[in-house]
């Protein structure tokens, strides 16, 4: 069973993280899913792949009536991000999915049709969840050419998809980063290889550095909190990306 952790709670405004499934088969990459709730409304970020749907569905059910998850936010088009879409739609045919307009005809291969998607233009846009206004923040080429992050100013939380992701060995499989220097070694190779553009990376770092953030929440690996958020942004800014390991 995936662990569920409340990251932020203020009245009916809550962020929940679903992470670390001890029963997950080794051939599937570990993922973090996040649910934001406000005013009876709920949205899930990067709901994951088809393979992990049972684990995500049962973990989310412990805290939120899954019928209330009326919207999904897909940071990009990869299978570990959104290939479970068809299964969420089997459960709730009214579910809608936020997604870059670039993937309008790609992601329906996983499920849905032209009424399923709320397509985001490159500049991003505000997303209302109950009483909270979140922002779909452009993060194109990090790593996907049509890529968005989700910023919640009230919770001071930024969901960053693959940015900040780390491939953690089982013995360092913590939910929150506790030792930045040790942790970031597991993120370096991934960021160098998967993030394709230094220009896009610098632009993102400049924008992210201006946000007032307590939590930076990637889709893989551990969550950065407090001072580690800025440490990560500075580290990423310095990193040369768009190259192979060697």
């Amino acid at each position, binding site marked *: *069973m995936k662990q569920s952790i409340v990251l932020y709670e203020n009245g009916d405004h809550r962020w929940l993280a679903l992470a670390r499934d001890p029963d997950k088969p080794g051939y599937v990459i570990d993922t973090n899913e996040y649910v934001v709730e406000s005013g009876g409304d709920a949205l899930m970020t990067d709901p994951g792949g*088809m*393979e992990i*749907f*049972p*684990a995500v*569905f*049962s973990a989310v*059910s*412990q805290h939120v*009536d*899954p*019928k209330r998850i009326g919207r999904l936010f897909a940071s990009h088009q990869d299978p570990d991000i959104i290939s479970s879409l*068809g*299964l969420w739609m*089997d*459960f709730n045919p009214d579910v809608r999915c936020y997604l870059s307009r670039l993937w309008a005809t790609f992601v329906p291969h996983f499920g849905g049709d032209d009424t399923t998607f709320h397509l985001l233009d490159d500049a991003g846009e505000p997303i209302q969840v109950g009483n909270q206004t979140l922002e779909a923040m452009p993060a194109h080429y990090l790593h996907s050419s049509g890529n968005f992050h989700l910023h919640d100013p009230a919770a001071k939380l930024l969901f960053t998809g693959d940015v900040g992701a780390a491939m953690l060995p089982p013995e360092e499989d913590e939910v929150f980063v506790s030792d930045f220097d040790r942790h970031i070694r597991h993120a370096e190779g991934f960021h160098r290889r998967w993030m394709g553009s230094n220009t896009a990376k610098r632009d993102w770092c400049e924008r992210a550095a201006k946000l007032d953030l307590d939590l930076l929440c990637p889709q893989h690996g551990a969550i950065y909190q407090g001072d580690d958020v800025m440490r990560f942004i500075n580290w990423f800014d310095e990193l040369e990306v768009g190259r192979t390991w060697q």
Partner: protein
Amino acid sequence: METGLQLVSEAHGHLQGIMQAVRRLYMRAVNAMLNARGLGSEAAGYQAVTLELRRFSKHIDGSSDELRGRIRELVYYGAARQRQARRLVRLEKGLDEAVATVASAAEHRLEDLRASLGRQDREIARLAKEIKRISVRVLRLVESGRNLGLMLRTEAAASSALTDGIGDEINTLMDCVAEELDSIERRMDQLNETRE
């Protein structure tokens, strides 16, 4: 039409109602027992019943936890079954459109998926049966809870100092648990009907 996963998810929703009522009962029983300690010997009967209520609350809490464990398992199996069923439907659709040689080569995969779906169905049926069995046990406990509520009302009536209304409150909580159990049982029956 309700899908299996919807029924399972609804049953989980009703479980939340039971867990809330049981938690409230537990806290109420602890408080009643502590309050009763400060009363004189004229409330000895009331004290004895609150002690029993405390024991009872632990007992129903344990059984509800067991119910929660099985329903959580059922939610997982329900979601896994939905995933498998989707794979099967896609493969069947693909084979309908494929040429005969490809279709026959893929037939064994189809058989594997059908067999796996059958195993999941049996697991779901087993869990649904187990959940009904635990529900019956919890329902019996509900009756004991109502009796304790009645005894608390009787004892409270004997002493004007005991006007905290706990007897009525216990009955209301037991009614709530019974209603939620009934809803869960109906979903389990529906689940079995959809599998038949």
